[in-house]
């Protein structure tokens, strides 16, 4: 087999078909009509302006997380600690908001400071994972996982301890902020915040430009593909790894800040909403190609939002979205693997 654009596309389409096949099998075993399920997912995602705007609300933090992860992927790191980094971003944002909410300052200034605080929180948590890896020899997957647990524990402690609602602490989170401190909502919508959408779009464009067009991006690629050779070529390895952790932390912190200021308007126990892990799946699916991140993230967000309808209309669990996303990632990666093997085989026997 030769390495052509045609068979690459063929493998990708094949992977999607296989994923659908497995999803259909799951639906069949659950006793549901697959096509009815897909129809309701589609309707649930784009059936009305309201649900479509919900998709965009979910798209923003997912795209932010994916953008950050593309940077760490480029340098060859599995920043699984992104969940904790999102949580820390949310905590720092909440902290800043609580400090400033009664200051009487302009809400715009307070929100800006709060978002920057979130960026700081995400970055610090990411640098911690980076330092563990660089100076402590702790693999970033284990370090990140550990820090995720610490972040969750910290979050719960704050919600049930120092930041608890007056009277009784609640799983529903801290007391919501005053409406004047919410991210401005677009006219005619209940939840859509144009500012956060702008941040996400600028973010992914910045990441794309950085990876594809800058010296820094090329250095990250070099370190990611072969740190030894990169070092011999005169490229600092651990410094670039730390930098990519920091950049990913910036994006994770932004995602956390968005969750607090634009989605929940308070700190809740599951504030990261799993966007970190979902972002890992999107990043895996698009490989190194930042250009595909925005549409794929949008599709994943649509699946998530669309499947909310399933329990109501079809008595199916909404985790079907997860099944679809998971099988899709699995088969696309499997397709890459099989294709690479076939390409290698042809190389050996010319």
């Amino acid at each position: 087999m030769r390495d052509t654009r045609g068979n690459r596309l063929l493998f990708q389409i094949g992977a999607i078909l296989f994923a659908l096949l497995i999803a259909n099998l799951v639906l069949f075993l659950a006793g549901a009509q697959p096509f009815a399920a897909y129809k309701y997912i589609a309707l649930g995602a784009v059936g009305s302006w309201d649900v479509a705007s919900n998709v965009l609300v979910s798209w923003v933090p997912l795209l932010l997380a994916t953008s950050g992860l593309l940077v760490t992927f480029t340098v060859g790191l599995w920043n699984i600690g992104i969940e904790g980094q999102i949580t820390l971003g949310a905590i720092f944002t909440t902290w800043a908001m609580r400090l400033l909410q009664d200051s009487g300052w302009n809400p715009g200034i307070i929100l800006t400071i709060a978002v920057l605080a979130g960026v700081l929180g995400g970055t610090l948590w990411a640098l911690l994972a980076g330092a563990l890896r660089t100076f402590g020899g702790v693999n970033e997957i284990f370090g990140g996982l550990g820090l995720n647990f610490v972040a969750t524990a910290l979050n719960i402690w704050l919600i049930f301890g120092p930041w608890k609602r007056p009277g009784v602490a609640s799983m529903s989170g801290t007391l919501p902020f005053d409406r004047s401190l919410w991210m401005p909502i677009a006219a005619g919508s209940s939840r859509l915040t144009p500012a956060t959408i702008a941040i996400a779009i600028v973010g992914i464009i910045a990441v794309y430009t950085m990876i594809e067009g800058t010296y820094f991006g090329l250095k990250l690629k070099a370190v990611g593909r072969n740190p030894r050779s990169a070092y011999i070529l005169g490229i600092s390895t651990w410094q670039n790894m730390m930098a990519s952790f920091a950049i990913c932390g910036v994006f994770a912190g932004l995602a956390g800040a968005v969750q607090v200021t634009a989605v929940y308007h308070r700190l809740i126990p599951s504030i990261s909403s799993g966007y970190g892990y979902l972002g890992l799946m999107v990043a895996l699916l698009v490989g190194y190609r930042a250009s595909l991140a925005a549409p794929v993230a949008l599709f994943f967000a649509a699946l998530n939002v669309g499947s909310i309808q399933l329990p109501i209309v079809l008595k199916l669990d909404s985790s079907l979205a997860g099944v679809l996303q998971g099988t899709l990632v699995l088969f696309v990666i499997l397709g890459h693997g099989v294709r690479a093997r076939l390409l290698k085989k042809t190389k050996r026997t010319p």
Partner: protein
Amino acid sequence: MQVEVRGITKCFGAVRANDNISFTVPSSSIEGILGENGAGKSTLMKILSGFYSSDSGDIILDGEKVTIDDPADAIRQGIGMLHQDPLDFPPFKVIDDFILGKKGGLIPNRRAAIREFNELATRFDFSIDPESYVDTLTVGERQQLEILRLLWLGSRVLILDEPTTGISLPQKEKLFATLKKLASEGMTVLFVSHKLEDVEALCNRATVLRQGRLVGTVEPPFDTKVLVEMMFGKEIPQEPKTQLRMGTTVLHAKHVELEGIRIQIKNIDLRVRAGEVIGVAGMEGSGQILFLSACAGLAQPVKGSICLDEDEKDMTGKTYHEFRKKGVVYLPAARLEQALIPGLSLTEHFILSEGMKGLFIDRKKSEELAKSRISLFNIKGRPDSPVESLSGGNQQRALLALMRDPLKLILIEHPTRGLDVESTIYIWGKLKERCARGTAIVFISSDLHEILKYSDRVLVFFAGRVTPPLRASTLTVERLGRLIGGKDWDSIETEVSHA
């Protein structure tokens, strides 16, 4: 057991590692397998022990043609191999390591195994506690453990790959006594080594390989001169060299002591001068790479210091990047693993090595840079070719093209290994151009002709020892071969003390 190989051929890509090799080793004998690096010894032994399968040819045991599927199959058929680095399990207890690999029931009978282990150990006068941990044993003891294990599994052919590296003299003597005893009991021993002395002391016969082919078989008494000539080829008359220019000091290694995984080298003293070429000879793994790495900050000496330039600036403990800033580069032999980045194009490599300033990459300018370097270094490839798509010779040219100009010192492992004649001449032409402009070169090579042809001075490494720099003009392939094989070292030391 009589071992016969008939017409064994094995290719790796374009390289014929074994080319139609045939010989027979009778039972109850110790056969030395001699050859320089890359001669094909290890490949042949790995085919015999089931790690590789040959492209063609037969293995015949006791007159019967056999196929060997994998190492476990080799052991079932009676062939056990003792690898240069013992393939044991350091976190295990000796007895658990010993039991491993034995077919048997679900639950191993440890008590019986311990009894048999002790019986075997007493027979060969080994003293290893079966309840101790493998990682507390010395290399020599781990070797003994492996031998016991292979015997217990029923080996009737024992292959030993460079077994005398890294073990003490008493352990070596015990090993030789054991092997002789085993041979007298009917064992066939294949003893792979580059140490002429060991082969001469132990073996009933020596088979010499060179460049994948069988050169011949020699019976004792061994004539070292004949063996060296068989291993390294005939003397080639040398062209007279231009007089050595004594430039300023580029590098001064002062009483450097180095420690590697299984090697310790003491007291290397070398002053490298601008424009000179120093060849580093020795069997692979004798510490040459460690020494070169230390000269570039890629490894740290245990004692002594590395100084650069005429003013002898002490660079000990500095990183490679600081050496690099001072005009030192290191070119590893494993091009795709350690020097180039698979997946990136030639242009991208040139951009990276130039260390350009600014934020954005100037695509047009960098492509022009790549084009000019590609034509200057005669690389067969396009600016957007990924480096892994280039041939070995072109990858090596690319490596040279990536070096900045000017440089003070180039440290290079095997500059022309695996390259064709045209590329070899081209690469040395480029390197000599640099020398003419004052760059010093220190290179490692296992090709003695290359060492003698291009070096002004030569260092020879052998089992943790290093010769003082020897004038290349006073050396011959034979003398070099003897030094690499561990001969004549006393005379070197007396020469130096008289000088």
